[in-house]
């Protein structure tokens, strides 16, 4: 799913360093331009507002805004149930992220290995996995493996495919991070008599780790979104909890709006963290 942004970001690592602020693309608007902008802004905002009002009116006319349809989400038991789901979402995300990062590190080092078969195998894994949908991997774990006697517990039915697919994405991030460390660092390490492994471990990786931190956080946001595949697995994460709730109270649309908002708040906070980390690094 969102894995592939990691590659995009990895690539962008080096480029972003000398980035020009977008402001340089235009002169500060003069008084006349400012007036035009103001008028256009007001007109456009009014148009958007009118559209929104129309949508809300339609929504209300369809009875979707009736107080009775929203009242359950003003009660604690519904929220307790959803927050339980959120907790399961976070748990699944954290465990898959840990596994995917470990796998990704191994794969990244494999791709940078001096041995050809290792390099080749890692590259093959990454290429295959990043071009197969996570949903398909979920179906394999859900329907195919039990046929061959491997029926994982529900939690792992979600975590394993996510870890497998995200490992490739994390490998991309780590590889870009390692490559972004100046060659001179490796050369210096070798020159003072460290082995290749030690140079990697003691000199290159610590520097790379700092640089890839923002990409790791934003990849984790992607992974957190991927846990919504629990809907398919029937693992009781946030979206599946929403499904059970909607089944119970028949409030399909209200429930999914609330679920969407919870995802938005959690992920936006994580994304903000990623940006904070990024800007702190840009300053350093």
């Amino acid at each position, binding site marked *: *799913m969102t*894995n*592939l*942004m990691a590659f*995009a*970001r990895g*690539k*962008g690592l080096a*480029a*972003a360093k*000398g*980035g*020009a*602020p*977008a402001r*340089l*693309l*235009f002169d500060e*608007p003069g008084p006349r*331009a400012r007036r035009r*902008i103001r008028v256009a*802004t007001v007109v*456009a*905002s009014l148009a958007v507002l009118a559209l929104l009002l129309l*949508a*809300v009116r*339609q*929504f209300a006319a*369809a009875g*979707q805004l009736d107080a009775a349809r929203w009242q359950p989400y003003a009660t604690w038991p519904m929220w307790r149930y959803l927050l339980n789901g959120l907790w399961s979402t976070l748990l699944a995300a954290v465990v898959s992220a840990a596994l995917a990062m470990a796998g990704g590190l191994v794969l990244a080092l494999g791709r940078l290995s001096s041995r050809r078969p290792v390099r080749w195998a890692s590259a093959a894994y990454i290429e295959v996995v*990043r*071009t*197969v*949908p*996570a*949903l*398909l991997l979920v*179906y*394999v774990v859900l*329907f*195919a493996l039990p*046929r061959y006697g491997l029926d994982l517990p529900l939690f792992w039915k979600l975590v394993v495919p996510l870890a497998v697919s995200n490992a490739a994405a994390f490998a991309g991030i780590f590889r870009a991070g390692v490559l972004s460390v100046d060659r001179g660092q490796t050369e210096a390490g070798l020159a003072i008599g460290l082995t290749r492994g030690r140079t990697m471990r003691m000199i290159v990786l610590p520097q790379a780790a700092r640089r890839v931190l923002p990409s790791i956080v934003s990849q984790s*946001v992607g992974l957190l*979104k*991927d846990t*919504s*595949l629990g*809907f398919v697995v029937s693992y009781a994460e946030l*979206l599946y909890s929403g499904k059970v709730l909607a089944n119970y109270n028949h409030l*399909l*649309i209200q429930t*999914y*709006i609330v*679920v*969407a908002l919870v*995802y*938005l708040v959690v*992920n*936006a906070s994580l*994304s903000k963290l990623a940006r904070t980390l990024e800007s702190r690094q840009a300053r350093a």
Partner: protein
Amino acid sequence: MDALSGNLPALWDGLVVTLRLTLLALAGAFAIGAVVATARVSPVPVLRAAGTVYVETLQNIPLLVLLILAVFGLPEIGVQAGLFTTAVVVIALYQAAYVAEALRSGINSVAAGQGEAARALGLTFTASLRHVVLPQALATVVQPLGNIVIMLTMNTSLAAAVGVVELTAAANRVNLIEAQPIPIFVGAGVAYMLLASVAGYVTGVLERRLAIVR
């Protein structure tokens, strides 16, 4: 392998739907993404804010949730569209946020002097973006955009959850009847890999074409 060959028509239909979903959503995502990216670097504060809100909202809600909300929610505000159309639009809107971010970071990667030089020549915002900054940005964003194409292809599989019988749904249905998951899912996986490798190949060619030799 009988399960695979015996059900080729059903799987082929699924593949065609996946292809149509991918291409239509891709066109939409690039168009909308370009607009949003322009908004995010424009001189108009409201546009910049709107662009930011757009990207933040769509990148932080799972596509699956957006799909379900759109399919069942839009008819309630009077927008009735078919499942396939809804899926195309939602996937396009969702991926547009990623396209916009890739384009923006591409624009930011162009040296500051280029924009300044363009302005010094008297070019307007749009003209300097179109003739000076974007052509240079394009070379650096080909790779990220190629990855978004692959990501979008994979994401079309989520349309299966809202009743669109694309490749993944077709494979799942065939498996329900044939109960031969390994050949069926491997077959579907190979089809996705072929689609992705086409995208990868085109990306590679474009990258070489657009590379700016200095």
